[in-house]
């Protein structure tokens, strides 16, 4: 055998180089982020919106000399990374996020309050409400997102006035499944919530400081009426709801014209328009006595509790991100209604956005309180059971008691 020791030595040495190189990188990472203390703002944003913020960042650097380092991150990782990295001092100064993270971020002590000051009145009320947690504002909102009813205007030219009217109009157009909404084996309460509120059953009652976790409204009589109605529209009823319809199946059904109504969010409008559908945006037709209010998700920016640059961070957010130009830039990157009223008005020249904005006016912020986590756990599965033929009222009562027990 002609392979001698030296060859293996070289391979071994190479391995060690790699190992120590890795160790060096790991160690180096500890300190490289310390640069934030010397006049650099590190901002985490989702990868799609990096470019939209570049302009604001450059303008800020030009005026104040503070470098703004925009880091594109995968949306799915931002929250957990932020919670884990802030206490170590390595996190960013500012992160993009959504208002329903607030309970978790605040419980973990990783966000600093932000003062919108007099500009608070310039934002849509739902955006400011959502940015406030236990009476303190923590988020600079930039967009408000909610679901609405997408209608294929070629199949059904007129908006529906109620849920039954919608089904009737769709059937008149010759469709067997006039309406689709995504569900799943474990239900999808987010997409069913407008129908629940139509019967007057919010999840939590709300007071001056936002949602009150001790006031669970889920199980009121309206909730039971909703459950009964849901059962009547499920497997053993009209079949309007089906837990086998996933988001992909719902999309396909709408795009191929099998369904004329699709309850979904702005994220799917692009696909519908690209698919050649003449899309109109309607409010959610109510099956009950009250208005069908979907959840509003508000997106915004948070400041890290451990940021060394809180003054610059506040200044950048309130005075730069909170301007109409930047809010419109962000709108163009994501096609979601801006949170700043003036920008929202400009954006509403687009009928699609105006449609979502009209529904958004009826929307309620999704609760950010930690108790909501307990609700999600049981909510969907109970609704899925009801759709699949479980006795509605007892199932709903069990849901209420499970949630009640979990919140304690």
């Amino acid at each position, binding site marked *: 055998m*002609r*392979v001698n*020791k*030296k*060859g*293996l*030595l*070289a391979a*071994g040495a*190479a*391995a*060690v*180089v790699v*190992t*120590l*190189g*890795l*160790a*060096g990188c790991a*160690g*180096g990472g*500890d*300190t*490289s982020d*310390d640069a934030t203390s010397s006049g650099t703002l590190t901002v985490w944003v989702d990868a799609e919106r990096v470019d939209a913020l570049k302009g604001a960042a450059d303008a800020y650097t030009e005026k*104040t*000399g503070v470098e703004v380092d925009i880091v594109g991150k995968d949306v799915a990782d931002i929250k957990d990374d932020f919670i*884990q990295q802030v*206490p170590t001092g390595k996190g960013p100064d500012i992160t993009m996020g959504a208002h329903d993270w607030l309970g*978790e971020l*605040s*419980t*973990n*002590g990783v966000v600093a*309050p932000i*003062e919108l*000051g*007099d500009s608070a009145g310039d934002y849509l009320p739902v955006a400011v409400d959502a940015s406030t947690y236990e009476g303190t504002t923590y988020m600079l909102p930039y967009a408000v997102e909610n679901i609405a009813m997408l209608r294929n205007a070629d199949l059904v030219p007129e908006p529906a006035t109620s849920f039954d009217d919608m089904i009737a109009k769709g059937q008149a157009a010759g469709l067997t499944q006039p309406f689709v909404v995504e569900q799943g*084996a*474990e239900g999808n309460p987010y997409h069913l919530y407008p129908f629940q509120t139509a019967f007057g059953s919010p999840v939590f009652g709300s007071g001056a400081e936002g949602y009150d976790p001790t006031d669970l409204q889920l199980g009121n009589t309206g909730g039971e009426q909703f459950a009964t109605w849901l059962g009547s529209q499920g497997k053993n009823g009209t079949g309007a709801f*089906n837990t*086998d319809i*996933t988001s992909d*199946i719902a999309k396909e059904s709408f795009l191929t014209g099998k369904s004329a109504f699709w309850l979904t969010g702005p994220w799917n409008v692009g696909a519908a328009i690209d698919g050649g559908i003449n899309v109109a945006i309607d409010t959610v037709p109510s099956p009950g006595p009250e208005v069908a209010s979907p959840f509003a998700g508000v997106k915004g920016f948070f400041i890290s*509790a*451990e940021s*060394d*640059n*809180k*003054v*610059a961070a*506040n*200044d950048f957010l309130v005075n730069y991100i909170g301007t109409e130009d930047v809010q419109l830039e962000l709108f163009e990157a994501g096609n979601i209604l801006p949170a700043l009223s003036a920008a929202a008005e400009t954006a509403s020249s687009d009928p699609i956005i105006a449609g979502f904005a009209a529904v958004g006016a009826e929307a309620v912020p999704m609760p950010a309180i930690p108790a*909501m*986590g*307990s609700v999600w*756990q*049981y909510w969907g*599965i*109970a609704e899925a059971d009801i759709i699949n033929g479980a006795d509605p009222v007892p199932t709903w009562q069990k849901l209420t008691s499970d949630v009640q027990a979990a919140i304690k």
Partner: protein
Amino acid sequence: MSSTIDEEVAAKAPQRPTKRQRQAANIADAASGGIKMLVLKLVLLGILDAIAVSAVFVLVMGGQWLVAAVVALVAAVVNWIYFSRRKLPAKYLTPGIIFLVLFQVFVLVYTGYIAFTNYGTGHNGSQEQAVSSLMASSLQRVEDSPTYPVTVVDQLGTLGLLATDPDGDAYVGTNDRPLEPVDADMEGGKAVATDGWTSLSFADVLARTDEITELAVPFSDDPNDGALRTPDGSTAYQYVSTLEYDEAAGTMTDVTTGTVYSDIGTGAFTSESGEELLPGWQITVGFDNFVRAVTDERLAEPLVYVTLWTFAFALISVASTFFLGLFLAIVFNDLRMRGRRYYRVLMILPYAIPTFLSALIWRGMMNESFGFINQVLLGGAEVPWLTDPFMAKVSVLIVNLWLGFPYMFLVCMGALQSIPDDIQEAATVDGAKPWAVFRLIKLPLLLVTVAPLLIASFAFNFNNFNVIYMLTDGGPRDSNAPIPVGFTDILITMVYKVAFTGQSRDYGLASAYSIIIFIVVSVIAIIAFRRTKSLEELN
């Protein structure tokens, strides 16, 4: 005599080496190339030392003395080993050991450490961070109070705020001195400078961010009026704090209700009635997590059937993949079969596709109303593949069989080829039927080599999180259980659900559970390895 050998060698030498032989020779040449390799070694070690030195430098600058010392020590040891003329075993072992420590030992030790802490939602950082976060969020802006344009000013190193009230009057104050009226230079309705104070430019403000974040100028002599604070250095608002921190006593007092929250050693300020102020902080809690893991009432009932199903899942998966893999290996080992090579490639395909992807594809195909299997293969049947408790278990096993048999096929193929043919021939000559040959000779010999792999496969499937999570996510849900557990959940996915439900992340509890599962799997593996020792006597 020697001449004949030389002749033989000489006679063989002129044969042209095959392409493969030449390739092998080239590799061997390259590997042994004296001076070149020495240079390469020096270069590589040089690069390593350069990286180590720069790492140490950066670490020392960052105050990470311990890590810097470890890096320096490791680099020194590596140099010593590779420049030494002896230390041959160490030269082989060092890289492996470094990798082992970095990727295995460290992770294990860290998981062990976390299991003894309360790390999780609400206990995320240090006590100091919790206090500052609580204090920051307890600030409430005084209702209907105006916005005060301010200039940050400095007097002999003490920062103050020069504020302009809505009437246009200027006031100045510091942390210790409440606001008092002054004469000031006005610019656009905002006081920008006053005698005896130096106005800070925005760059100065940023440079002293820490002090400005702490700056709270009392509004008046009455503490109940609150204080002016400026979040952005140019406007200030009047805040009152609802919490008061007494550092000496370690207590937080809610000034609006008078409730006293004290540090009672649970990692959060707790009132007498047991109400906790969150965020808390991270502390070590001893065996609390382990006690909770085994005494949690919510788990009592689900734990039994989840454990049984975990064992069933792991055992059936190992058995089914092994026997299918073995069967196929025997079939494709038969020389009479044509095109075996192509079939073999097909067999290995499932192994080449990432588990995540194939599990998700299977999930789509098994959808009850719209899936490929029901719609196309079964002509519109409504088989509840993933939604019926029993069928979901069957589906999980089928998918895991599909994912797992190629591995067993490969392993068995190799093991079968290493069994000498003469044993089989001897048995046939002795009159043994093929089944008897297989059962009495091949299988035991096969098990000698394969048994350890079967044990490893059992341990892998015992914790096969990916398949369960991607295919069914543990579902269908058991709506009677008090935790969101489903009928196909195995221990590790149940732990995931218990420790990471909704918005709460309980890393301490999760680590404790994973240590318990680790112990269970190790005990089973050790016992199984002892039993398989007896097989080795067959050889």
